[in-house]
């Protein structure tokens, strides 16, 4: 059944799913943290943080990729330091995941922030009067209530990651089996004579994956809505 895709195309699909899932999951905890800060706290430099988070949305992806290369490349600002403790991003699939996480981050934070702002704070107050400390309030009340936003944000970030091209190819290049995700593979196939069929197959797969992600989020959101039926 695997013969309708070439091994390279299979590798690109597997890699894309791995990279998108890793990037999305890894960006969730900091995403929730930053969205919470932006939604609830007032602090010095808040609009600065908001701007930095949103920067990847408006910068040309190639610029973001180049900045990542400067920062997290082997001789980069953080890259050199991280390499010493064994974390290497450059020209690895982990780098592609990082690029996806950064590119999807604004979408994730935006969805999370909106849902945190929509939480009825009076419910959190009620939880506090019942003896819940701030962490318990967050875990037992806030988090369950923002679950639809978490799902929506993760789907957006995942979809963005599946389609991420410019930052990834700039940061970690286009190495089959290591950093060649679906969009890079499609791009490569369009550059070589006779690659049209392969490009078409991968395009179809891209569409299927994206639609499956949407469908799954819809089902999850419906399940949550049933539970929250207000």
């Amino acid at each position, binding site marked *: 059944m695997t013969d309708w895709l070439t091994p390279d195309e299979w590798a690109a699909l597997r890699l894309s799913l791995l990279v998108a899932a890793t990037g999305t999951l890894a960006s969730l905890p900091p995403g929730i943290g930053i969205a919470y800060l932006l939604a609830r706290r007032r602090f010095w430099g808040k609009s600065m943080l908001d701007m930095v988070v949103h920067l990847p949305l408006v910068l040309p992806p190639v610029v973001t990729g180049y900045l990542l290369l400067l920062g997290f490349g082997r001789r980069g600002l953080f890259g050199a330091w991280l390499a010493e403790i064994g974390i290497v991003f450059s020209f690895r699939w982990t780098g592609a995941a990082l690029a996806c996480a950064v590119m999807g981050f604004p979408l994730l934070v935006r969805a999370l922030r909106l849902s945190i702002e929509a939480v009825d704070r009076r419910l959190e107050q*009620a939880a506090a*009067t*019942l003896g*819940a400390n701030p962490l318990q309030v967050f875990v*037992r009340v806030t988090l369950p209530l923002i679950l639809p936003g978490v799902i929506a944000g993760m789907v957006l970030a995942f979809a963005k990651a599946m389609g991420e091209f410019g930052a990834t190819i700039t940061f970690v290049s286009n190495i089959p089996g290591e950093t060649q995700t679906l969009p890079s593979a499609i791009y490569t196939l369009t550059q070589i004579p006779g690659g049209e069929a392969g490009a078409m197959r991968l395009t179809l797969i891209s569409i299927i994956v994206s639609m499956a992600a949407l469908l799954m989020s819809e089902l999850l959101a419906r399940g949550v809505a049933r*539970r*929250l039926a207000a």
Partner: protein
Amino acid sequence: MRGLSVAVEHRQGAFRLEAAFEAEGGVTALFGRSGSGKTTLINVVGGLLRPERGRVVLDGEMLVDTEARRFVPPHRRRIGYVFQESRLFPHLDVRANLLFGRRLARGTDGISFDDVVDLLGIVPLLARHAAGLSGGERQRVAIGRALLARPRLLLMDEPLAALDVARKAEILPFLERLRDLGIPILYVSHALSEVGRLADRIVVMEDGHVAAAGPVDEVSARLDVAALRSAREAGAILTARVEAHDPGFALTQVVTEAGPLYVPLLERPVGASLRILVSARDVTLSLYPPKGTSALNVLAGHVAEMGAEVAGDPTMEVRLVCGGASLVVRLTRRSLAEMDLHPGTSVYAAVKSVALLD
């Protein structure tokens, strides 16, 4: 040292709260119209609001002392709070809502889960979802949830205000049972009949300050407290005891400090105690003992205090002392002048009807 002691100041926009009161066991009502600062005040007690200045002490524990920069956060106060809009957690069913604070409150003392659901009649609701409950059911669950967190004090912010008359009648008996559990309750209300039915003591709030405080029977008749006088059911609240039943005429005789009164036949044993409200509009006065009257309840007393005249209002209030209690009467200024009433005048008060508060 048992009890609650509050003395705080707080500004919120143009509104200024400057209030001090004490409460011991039993039910203390915070009474006043909306905007008088009742909710602000119990939010200070519950820890939802940090006052600019002042102290809050519960059972000898300093909860707030702005001078010492002490502020105990709400989750460490063990003060239950029943909100006007129940605030049930929409992602949890009734049982999980009830148990939310159970494990967080250390200790094994206090009322058991089974007792609470029995007391509040919510056994059939346990598996239901919070969202599917009626207003009255939601409020009962909210009360149970607060009780199960083992509170040292229970705050109730107009728990009946969002309910219609039928739902109110459904909840009130449960609130009475709650009163008998022995947990001190601070009960916010703007309905005098509710206060009379549930509370032992009343703290009257006016424009952010305490206008009067004391036992309900004493304070309810005070003419100098505008918030009490402008209440819809203004009058005097009396404690009564069932003296005798007269099934032939379908009447029960009760004894109050103001004297004996007949009320429609009650299904209560002789000796039972209850609260009644004698509305100021339901009392008429005469200077002589009425003869050949249809009035069943006539109490002898004397005028103790005259209320303030309000321009454009043909009526005003007078406080009588009958026996050991006060009654309030609203009569026209013209009658007042014709009868030449002044403090000390002996009068006979005919009580047309009596509202039973429980």
